[in-house]
């Protein structure tokens, strides 16, 4: 059985795993490493996983968090899964835009729109 996460809140919406961040700031090297390990472990154990990362609780992040998302994206692709992001606030979306990562990730304004894009019902 998986240990409850201190950094992530995970719920199931049909076939989609919706993951929210417990921390408002994804900054600390150590917590980013822990979050990355949890997310990679989650994706690795679920071939074909449909993952929605919901950023509605996040108001600040460090560039190391972007690296974490890129690593997760690769892992989900290896698992023939899908990764989508939602509810990224304007300031953080600007970070994605500056780094051109908005072109790498499927980003939706709301989790509802992201879920619909997966073809799932909320």
């Amino acid at each position, binding site marked *: 059985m998986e240990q409850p996460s201190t950094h992530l809140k995970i719920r199931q919406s049909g076939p989609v795993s919706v993951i929210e961040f417990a921390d408002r700031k994804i900054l600390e090297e150590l917590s980013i490493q822990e979050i990355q390990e949890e997310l990679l472990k989650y994706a690795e154990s679920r071939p074909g996983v449909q993952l929605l990362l919901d950023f509605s609780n996040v108001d*600040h992040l460090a560039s190391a968090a972007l690296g974490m998302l*890129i690593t997760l994206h690769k892992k989900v692709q290896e698992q023939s899964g899908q990764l989508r992001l939602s509810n990224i606030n304007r300031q953080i979306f600007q*970070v994605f835009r500056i*780094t051109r990562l908005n072109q790498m990730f499927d980003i939706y304004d709301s989790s509802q729109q992201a879920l619909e894009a997966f073809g799932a019902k909320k």
Partner: protein
Amino acid sequence: MRVPPDFGINDAALHDVSVASTLQAVKPPEAEIMAALERCGYDADTIFAIKLAFEEAVTNAVKHGNHSDPSKRVFLRWYVDPERVVLMVRDQGCGFCPAAVPDPTADENLERPNGRGIMLMHSYMTRVLYNPAGNEVWMFKDNTGRARGKPAT
């Protein structure tokens, strides 16, 4: 290195502190800087930008410059008034060549997990300068277009 002359700030006006080389130890001076920005009436977007740039510089100093060795020191200098912010971060490492860092927005580098901190610092600050050794970064934010005329802090 003293404050770059074209930043328009008297060197003596800068706050000056050194802390142990851990992200935790940098938090109190960071909180002071953020409080100064608030007092000077900086808007939320500019505070976000300065906070992000400062944290990337500090992370680089702690992790890459000082190789996460908590016995080393990180040296900070800063100045905040309503029209401008100056931030300096220096580590005890042997430095690096900023020009040699690959462009993380180039197609071939887009999937690399690292290397975005420096370009974000350049994007969010008006000017970013390194000393010749590459272990000291100076960042300047021009806020003259947004200043509301509050006193220096």
